[in-house]
């Protein structure tokens, strides 16, 4: 800018001859930006109008007061006495969800909170509701785990190291001794898969309520036996550990489908993508573990179960999947990474397909498929395992005109969304729901033609705990997808495993049936077994509805 122009402007008053017209011009100049406000008002009005139309279109996806409210535990409810069978990775998580953790674990939570003020896990753990339970018995066949279970069970006040602890639960060396204990009302079973059905049945016989981890059973015959036994004892509450039953978004998804908002559904796509050794069940081997502190005999399994397993493997001609080590040979890999061998495991079908299946069964009441086909193999983790690390299972539901595809890999973690595909729209189901209208929809034809709905773009998004619709969601959805939101009830965040255990405990106190009861468990187990057998035998498995039997044609 040149010097002369930087001079301070002379006041207009210095030029009296031009005063009148200059004054008018100055007034105009003063007001010249006012029309800009008009433009802004018009723009905002138009923008709001578009949003309002979208909002009205999204209105049909709105539901009110549909998710059961959280009911706090009554403060003087009688104390329920629990026994824990199995304190491995999952067993420890279940006990934490019940409010019991080892002092070392609590100390670690404290430390994390100190390092990072945004880490609220310690506070969450402290604030988690007291379910009015006492851990009176624990059983683990590895001494170190059993000791940890005792110290977690006695940590009534959720203290760190050098804190005040409550009475210690009794350790039982054999789970049957724990089941015989009179001071145990109910048991949580988190042993390896090959023990689930047996322990659950023994617990029912001993008159205990049962929470058993998924999958429900390891062999097909025990599936029927367990169902019969649970049905004969309706006073005992049985819950299968599918904590996804507690995800609020699934309930919403169910309602959307019930209302027919997706149109006729013909295909469901689900899957698992993991890409690390831990996700592929290559769990760490405890440094102190040895034949001296592990009860290998008990680990081997129940003789009756093993016979059922061997009978099937022999008759189906799939002995190559048994072993390779002999069952009585102590081996640390097999103890800590048991999921890698059919001898103890149910593979991807039992561990991860069951989660996907149960989610869909919850939303769509699928029941047992009319047939199952599977393929896959050990393609990446060639560490001697017998269960596949890549698996595709296709379930057909002929009477529902519907296919459910499950596709899994343990060597890639690209996120593939769970999709329910209808003639009019596709719903993606996770912690959030997204509905995308199909360009060829009939139901929404008019709205698509009017430009209210844009086909191919997410039209409706539901983020639990928030009122969200098609127009204001991108960021909130992003939050949820990054795991910043959890399962919500009335806007409050909860751990789903806590909710699932609480539901079981509430049902015990009130004599009610929980959400993942024996019928849902039976459907889950049979579906998984059909998928497993289809893989092992390399042919399609069918379900004979009348005889309730898995058949080969």
């Amino acid at each position, binding site marked *: *800018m040149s010097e*002369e*122009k*930087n*001079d*301070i*402007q002379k*006041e207009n*008053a210095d030029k009296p001859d031009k005063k009148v017209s200059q004054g008018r011009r*100055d*007034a105009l*100049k*003063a*007001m*010249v*930006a*006012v029309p*800009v*406000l008009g433009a*802004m008002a018009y*723009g*905002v009005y138009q923008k*709001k109008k578009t949003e309002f139309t979208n909002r009205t279109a999204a209105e049909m996806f709105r539901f009110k007061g549909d998710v059961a409210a959280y009911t706090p535990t009554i403060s003087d409810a009688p104390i329920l006495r629990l026994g824990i069978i199995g304190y491995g990775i999952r067993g420890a998580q279940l006990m934490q969800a019940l409010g019991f953790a080892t002092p070392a674990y609590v100390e670690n939570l404290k430390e994390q909170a100190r390092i990072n*003020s*945004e880490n609220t896990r310690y506070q969450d753990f402290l604030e988690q509701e007291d379910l009015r339970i006492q851990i009176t018995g624990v059983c683990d066949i590895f001494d170190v785990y059993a000791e940890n279970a005792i110290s977690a069970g006695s940590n009534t006040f959720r203290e760190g190291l050098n804190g005040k602890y409550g009475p210690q639960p009794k350790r039982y060396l054999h789970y049957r001794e724990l089941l015989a204990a009179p001071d145990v009302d109910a048991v949580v079973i988190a042993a390896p898969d090959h023990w689930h059905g047996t322990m659950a049945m023994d617990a029912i016989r001993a008159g205990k309520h049962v929470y058993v981890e998924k999958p429900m059973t390891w062999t097909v015959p025990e599936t029927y036996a367990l169902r019969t036994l649970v049905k004969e004892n309706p006073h005992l509450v049985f819950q299968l550990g599918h904590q996804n039953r507690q995800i609020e978004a699934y309930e919403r998804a169910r309602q959307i489908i019930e209302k027919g908002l997706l149109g006729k559904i013909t295909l469901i796509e689900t899957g698992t993508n993991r890409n690390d050794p831990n996700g592929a069940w290559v769990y760490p081997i405890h440094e102190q573990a040895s034949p001296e502190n592990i009860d290998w005999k008990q680990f081997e399994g129940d003789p009756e179960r093993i016979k059922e397993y061997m009978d099937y493997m022999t008759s189906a001609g799939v002995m190559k999947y048994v072993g390779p080590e002999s069952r009585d040979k102590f081996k640390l890999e097999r103890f800590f990474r048991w999921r890698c061998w059919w001898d103890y495991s149910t593979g991807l079908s039992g561990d991860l397909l069951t989660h996907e299946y149960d989610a869909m069964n919850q939303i769509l009441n699928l029941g047992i498929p009319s047939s199952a086909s599977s393929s896959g193999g050990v393609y990446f983790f060639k560490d001697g395992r017998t269960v596949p690390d890549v698996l595709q299972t296709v379930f057909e539901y002929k009477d529902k005109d519907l296919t459910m595809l499950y596709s899994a890999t343990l060597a890639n973690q690209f996120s593939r969304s769970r999709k329910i595909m209808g003639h009019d729209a596709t719903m993606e189901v996770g912690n959030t729901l997204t509905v995308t209208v199909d360009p060829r929809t009939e139901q929404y034809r008019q709205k698509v033609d009017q430009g209210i709905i844009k086909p191919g773009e997410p039209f409706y998004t539901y983020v639990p705990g928030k009122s969200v619709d098609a127009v*204001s969601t*991108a*960021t*909130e959805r*992003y*939050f949820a997808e*990054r795991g910043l939101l959890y399962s919500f009830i009335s806007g409050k965040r909860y751990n789903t495993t806590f909710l699932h255990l609480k539901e079981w405990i509430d049902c015990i106190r009130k004599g009610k049936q929980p959400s993942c009861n024996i019928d849902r468990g039976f459907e889950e187990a049979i579906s998984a077994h059909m998928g497993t057998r289809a893989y092992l035998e390399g042919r399609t498995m069918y379900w004979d509805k009348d005889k309730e039997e898995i058949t080969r044609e």
Partner: protein
Amino acid sequence: MQSFQYSKLQLYALFILRVFIGWYFLYEGLAKLLTPNWSAYGYLIDSKGVFAPLFVQLAGNAALLDVVNIINAWGLTLVGLSLILGLFTKIGYFSAIFFMLMFYLSHPPLLHAEYILPREGSYLWIDKNLIMLASTVVLVLFPTSGIIGLDSLLVRKRKS
């Protein structure tokens, strides 16, 4: 009020810059006012950098958060009006600089910072907030509201 002898083009260019920045503020403010239950919460907890704990703390305190929300929605709106109309621009400019400084400090475009809000490109040290801040400083040094804007009426009133 100080005014400069600008060429016509210089004056219009400065005026347009002022209106554009004003427009940006006004819409940001109106959008917040018109969104039911709008809150700065998400933006605040997404803060990164040296001052992040301070902003996160603001989000955590319900009473302070309410104040932050009101200041944001109404403040941005009023700054926008001030810049567009050329009214009380001194306060408007300094408030704008304050807002931009806060936005910049809570979401500094650091080498490794990744933000959820707002979702847009990534920058290195200089971002839109900082450019807007610098532009506003330029506007403070080269005022136009005494010529084009309601401030000119105030000036004359004071003179007469």
